[in-house]
């Protein structure tokens, strides 16, 4: 049985990758905004993905017994998959947080802003990559599969696209074609997550040791995947209405965007929590 506080890790691996992908998508969309005022509005809203990542990161420290020794993690980049993950997330938080503070307090030269936000985006991509492979440990056969990074990256990609679309509604919304692309990306990502988790479920049946069968770890597996599908479909419907129904009020539109974000993140959390329940080593 897993000794870790897996709930805090599930929260972290839900919020942080989704927030980092949202930051990257928003940064990409920001580069297409022509007017200065529009860019400033987006800069203000970049606080949302930043805060999502920050809150996930803070939550993750709940599984540490002695967080006061965390400095050794930070100085240990390259030492282990976990230290790489932590250092890369911290690098993102530093770059994104400093950019946001600088951007809202003064007019940054266009090239400086572009370089700064690009650096934050690169850090985000690296951090999502490190987070996705942090659990690829050879002695844990149920985690050491292609489905682990695939489900995490796809979940983050989908939630990040959906969050970006929702956040842009607070800045007046995107062009319909871009909204459509983001919503389709979300739907496709959800399908990838579902496929990966179904294939993992099939693979669990083949993993056995002298003391345990991995198939026994999958109690409630299908039900949880069902809830994930329902949450994701709900999130998609809510945001579709918020983005494309012109007759609804701004208040309703924003409420739908918030509900959609919550449903999407809840769905990802269910899958992440399910992932931690499939823990089993090759030994005793």
């Amino acid at each position: 049985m897993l000794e870790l506080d897996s709930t805090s890790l599930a929260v972290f691996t839900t919020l942080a990758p989704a927030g980092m992908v949202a930051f990257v998508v928003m940064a990409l969309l920001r580069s297409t905004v022509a007017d200065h005022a529009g860019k400033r509005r987006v800069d203000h809203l970049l606080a949302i993905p930043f805060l999502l990542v920050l809150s996930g990161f803070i939550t993750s420290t709940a599984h540490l017994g002695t967080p006061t020794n965390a400095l050794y993690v930070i100085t240990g980049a390259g030492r282990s998959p976990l230290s790489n993950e932590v250092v890369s997330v911290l690098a993102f938080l530093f770059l994104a947080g400093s950019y946001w503070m600088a951007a809202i307090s003064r007019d940054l030269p266009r090239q400086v802003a572009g370089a700064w936000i690009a650096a934050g985006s690169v850090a985000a991509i690296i951090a999502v990559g490190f987070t996705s492979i942090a659990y690829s440990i050879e002695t844990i056969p149920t985690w050491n599969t292609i489905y682990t990074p695939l489900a995490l990256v796809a979940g983050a990609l989908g939630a990040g696209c959906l969050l970006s679309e929702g956040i842009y509604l607070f800045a007046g919304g995107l062009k319909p074609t871009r909204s459509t692309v983001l919503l389709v990306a979300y739907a496709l990502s959800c399908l990838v997550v579902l496929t990966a988790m179904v294939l993992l479920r099939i693979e669990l049946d083949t993993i056995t040791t002298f003391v345990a069968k991995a198939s026994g770890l999958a109690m409630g597996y299908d039900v949880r995947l069902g809830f994930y599908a329902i949450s994701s479909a709900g999130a998609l419907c809510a945001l579709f209405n918020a983005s494309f129904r012109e007759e609804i009020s701004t208040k309703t539109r924003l409420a739908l965007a918030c509900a959609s974000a919550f449903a999407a993140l809840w769905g990802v959390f269910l899958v992440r929590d399910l992932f931690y329940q499939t823990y089993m080593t090759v030994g005793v």
Partner: protein
Amino acid sequence: MGKAFYFDSALCTGCKTCELACKDYHDLDEGITFRRVFDIEGGSWELPAGGGPAVRQGVYVYHVSLACCHCDFGVCMEVCPTGAMHRDEQGLVWPDHDKCVGCGYCSMACPYGAPSLDLEAKKSSKCDGCTGRVADGGKPVCVEACPVRALEFGLESEVLSAHPDSVRCVPPLPDPSFTGPNLYVGPCPASEMAQEQGGWVANEGEV
């Protein structure tokens, strides 16, 4: 060449003196055990077809005394984000509590279940091979406590020359290729039956 444990499954009676000596020497709390003794059972029996007194049976039981194997490729060290889990000059692996962040990744990754989180100290804790005793020329306390001398400890070369027929894995231990454990096991007929027929850990709740 480093140091290694040898465990003779043919001699072990499952008395758990090694386990208790370790707990006593390291002053471990109720919830922490560095060395655990697995009771492995298997097989079945059947009544004779035409009746009669003789029951045909193929049941077996044996024990495996298991602590940290101080592996050559210790996965606990590989996943440790702070470098707290390290190998000392004796070749023994243990966590430096001044660096340990208590993340639990070592206990998560170890296929021998050797490290565990000390809930009071909020740090990883595990068998250190009695490194202090070994540095003074002694042996781990579990080895000295074993009443039937089923446990031995020494240079790997000495262990191998004394027990050339030893193996590195009997059920329920994992394939040694994962971590390169410095544990050699003297197999017994029962462990060979378990290898062929399967079986179960009879004291799962205890270990």
